[in-house]
């Protein structure tokens, strides 16, 4: 029973985009909080803290995102807890994003010239004040472009959640393809939708990069 690829099918795919966006938003928001903690831990003078943060980062950099997803999804079910695909995907991608954003932001924090820290010390500003008022605001400017760049990666990585049965954009495409046998049409449309989300973000990232390069050169 092959179905025609019509407006109903197109609508089904387009509506599934919201789940891609929801998952991306959760992972990005969670990753932002986690990433800041990881970055601060990574540059901490406490060796134990810095070491654990590094192990965390290395693990997520050195394993495929799909394995990370499987580990969370099947790992939780081992304990007899039934976990919804969205929950598993959200946890896995939040951890994934925390590691990557943590490493990106560590670089940005350390890119703030050491003279800024010395001037803060000389004025008597303590650690918290120095981070909050001097270092982080300057690191944030440097961080905008690579952070938006990572968000684009993250949106594309959410397609892996289709494999554990979470119906987002890619999974919706698979479902429609199984019914219509129009793979080129279906996945062409799916790819186009990803592109329509990601490309503007890439443009924004590139524009910001140029803008901050200009400011830095002043």
């Amino acid at each position, binding site marked *: 029973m092959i179905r025609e690829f019509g407006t109903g099918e197109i609508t089904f795919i387009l509506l599934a985009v919201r789940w891609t966006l929801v998952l991306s938003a959760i992972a990005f928001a969670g990753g932002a909080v986690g990433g800041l903690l990881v970055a601060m831990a990574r540059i901490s003078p406490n060796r134990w803290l810095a070491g654990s943060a590094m192990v965390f980062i290395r693990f997520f950099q050195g394993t495929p995102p799909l394995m990370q997803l499987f580990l969370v999804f099947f790992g939780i079910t081992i304990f007899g807890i039934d976990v919804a695909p969205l929950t598993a995907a959200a946890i896995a991608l939040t951890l994934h994003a925390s590691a990557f954003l943590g490493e990106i932001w560590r670089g940005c924090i350390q890119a703030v010239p050491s003279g*800024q820290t010395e001037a803060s010390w*000389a004025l*008597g500003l*303590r650690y918290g*004040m120095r981070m909050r008022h001097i270092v982080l605001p300057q690191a944030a400017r440097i961080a905008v472009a690579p952070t938006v760049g990572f968000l684009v990666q993250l949106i594309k990585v959410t397609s892996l959640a289709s494999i554990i049965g979470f119906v987002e954009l890619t999974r919706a495409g698979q479902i429609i393809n199984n019914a219509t046998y129009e793979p080129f049409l279906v996945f062409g449309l799916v790819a186009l939708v990803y592109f329509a989300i990601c490309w503007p973000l890439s443009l924004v990232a590139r524009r910001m990069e140029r803008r901050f390069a200009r400011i830095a050169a002043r």
Partner: protein
Amino acid sequence: MSDGGGSRDAPSAVRMEGVGKWFGTFQALTDIDLDVAQGERIVICGPSGSGKSTLIRCMNRLEPAQRGKIFVDGIELTAGPKNVEKVRREVGMVFQQFNLFPHMTVMENCAIAPRKVRGVDRVEAERRARHYLERVRIPEQAEKYPAELSGGQQQRVAIARALCMNPKLMLFDEPTSALDPEMVKEVLDTMIDLAQEGMTMLVVTHEMGFARRVADRVIFMDRGEIVETAPPDRFFDAPEHKRTRAFLGQISH
């Protein structure tokens, strides 16, 4: 804690006893003894790598000394982190590269430390900032960002920023070395004003004219040691040590 000076008998502004400092295996400071009185102006000179910057950077613990004791205004800097905080509140520092905060206006640069460290309210912090910006003669630049100012103006802002904390002691680490020649004078004039008002100052510089005019004592350092200390006329006209004479010969010709 009050901003002004105490009423007790004034201790030395800085006292160093047998201070030693290493970077890895390189010994940057060897057995330094130094006593700086309140109100004294000291110029420190010497060839590059002689340890002169390291010496003043040890006085607010931007560099930790590994041996010896350092007292600043009677507080033992080498006795723990609480004292480091206390000392940093009382010691102003001006850097070769200015190190202004680029994301803040001149006004914000001057107001942040009094507000966050001294707990001064915004109105008072800004009043104080305007006062010191007038003293360094750039009150009209208050709302600009550092990148919009010339090097000389930036360095004067850096001086005003340090003064806003009402420090008892000012350290200058080659304050004119990064400046274009035509801007050196405006910064030196600001420092001369400050000296005439009685500020205790330690200045690492190659500006020998400034040393002659302002310094109570000139210290010559070489290879991490204090080689010679003398009032400027004796230092320049009749230096005792061969190394001092060699150095002065190199810079004056």
